[in-house]
């Protein structure tokens, strides 16, 4: 399903999907995008006027954060540039699973299949879902305008063995 650039920012809807168990869609917690939220790291481009692509990140606390992004930038860099809690231990080189994100199923199908290398890393991600991706491997395209992306809870008291399977 193609989406146009002109489409208004994604409406806040409640998704009845078990995939989103960890991320409650709570309109009350919505926060407007603000340019001042840009932190020191993450390497992103300023979108050209009229070509802004919209993303709604859903934090592990259920907060919705709407951002505008440029085509070609990846979800990890975008999230980090907006101060979101995404670590990216390997610096976006597809060598760890710390930028694991859960993609709105409606948009997941618009994306290319993850590569073998990405799947190898997703195998190690905690709380893997059917629409999981590594943020560093998903580049924004016009088709993804309006996508919602949930950041999985990071700080559960994990056992190392949770990662062995």
């Amino acid at each position, binding site marked *: 399903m193609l989406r146009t650039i002109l489409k208004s920012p994604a409406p806040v809807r409640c998704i009845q999907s078990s995939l989103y168990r960890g991320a409650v869609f709570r309109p009350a917690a919505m926060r407007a995008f603000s340019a001042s939220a840009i932190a020191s790291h993450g390497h992103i481009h300023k979108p050209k006027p009229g070509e802004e692509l919209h993303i709604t990140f859903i934090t592990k606390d259920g907060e919705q954060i709407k951002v505008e992004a440029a085509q070609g930038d990846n979800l990890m860099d975008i999230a980090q540039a907006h101060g979101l809690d995404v670590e990216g231990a390997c610096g976006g080189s597809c*060598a*760890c*699973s*710390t930028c694991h994100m859960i993609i709105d199923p409606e948009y997941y199908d618009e994306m290319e299949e993850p590569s073998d290398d990405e799947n*190898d890393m997703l195998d190690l991600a905690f709380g*893997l879902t059917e629409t999981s991706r590594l943020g560093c491997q998903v580049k924004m395209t016009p088709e993804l305008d309006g996508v919602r992306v949930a950041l999985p809870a990071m*700080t559960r008291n994990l*056992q*190392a063995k949770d*990662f062995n399977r």
Partner: protein
Amino acid sequence: MNRVAVVGSGPAGFYTILRILKKRAVHVDLFEALPVPYGLTRFGVAPDHPEVRNCQERFAEVAGSPHFRFYGNTTVGKDVSVSQLLQNYHAVVFAYGAETSRGLNVPGSQLPGVISARDFVGWYNGEPAKQGLKFTLDRTEDVSIVGNGNVALDVARVLLRQPDDLRSTDMPEHAIAALTKSTVKKVHIVGRRGPVQSAFTTKELRELLVEPQVQLDPIVNLTEYIELAKPLGRAEKRKMELLLKGSTSPSAQRTWSLDFMQSPSEFKGEGDLLQSIEWTINTFAPGSKSDVVPTEKSVTTPTDLAVLSIGYKSVELPGMKEAGMTFIKDKGILENHRGHVTGVPGAFAAGWLKTGPTGVIASTMMDAFSVGDEVVSYLESVANTKLPGADDLDLPYAVSWNDWLEIDRQEIDRGKSYGKPREKFVSVPDMLNAL
């Protein structure tokens, strides 16, 4: 402002600090026994996996905080005591990892032809304590690695790859020279359980399967093992599919095998080379697909060198017991509840000292974040009394963060003449002489 001491500058230490500093304004002093930071990301991660070391950039960012100080070349338990740290800081996080290996108590395991993967990895990564070691690579054709985790696959890859391919990595010159003279033709990786239960990850397996001039022997009874273990999880399924496909290289200078359901029962050798290993054949224990028991059957295979890769192990620091901490020897961990060291308020364990030596950097990171959260909530509950931190410690030989940056600069500089990212200093005196 609260003062926090962290012992050990690997991923567990740095990620704990990152988390604490993100949530609360505290002073953090990081104690590291070596003059150089980063622990196993410097001395454990394979040189041909530079992307895994990218986390060091983040650690350097953390170290740039005005509330952070580095005390390198400072051994806790020797240069400063555990009790002194507990007195001088509101919280102390022990994150010094697992510096020794699990041993194997079978006849012949003390022979010189039986080495630990930890030693070999430390040697090829320039770890100072491992630099005196000599390996018989120039007289060895057949290597058997006991254990099949990612460390085993790292060791196998280093032994199987063309040494020329390692020249562009930061593997120290002495190791590249020794590997260039290597006569190794065959590497066996032997696990006590089946392929589905193997501990290596798909990424590491894929890497070896696509390595040019290197071939994996077909695995005996692979489909039977898979049938027995069904249903498989996603990761297991992908790993087994890869094993079924096998190597992609059409020709081979070196070969390797994955052998399963065997545990070594005796090493036999003469001088510094082994001659053979006797293996007990295991069988799956009834009612359990993961656990195995030994049978009466055994098999003997000829081999020149055995590498034990059956796990790392933490050690207790002098003074821990006196401070009231319990080190659980068989698990190699400090007794703790969610990172709080049992019986000693304000003392925390993080990383492999807390969880045991398993998992990748990502799992250590998440666990360190959870310990960081525990430290922060603990600090919120304690009185903010004035404590001296490192101010009254006598540490004349401590290496500062700026000192490390100078060592770092010189290592990168030395690397340039070899066309590699860095040529490490491999002894503590060399590191200190750089200053």
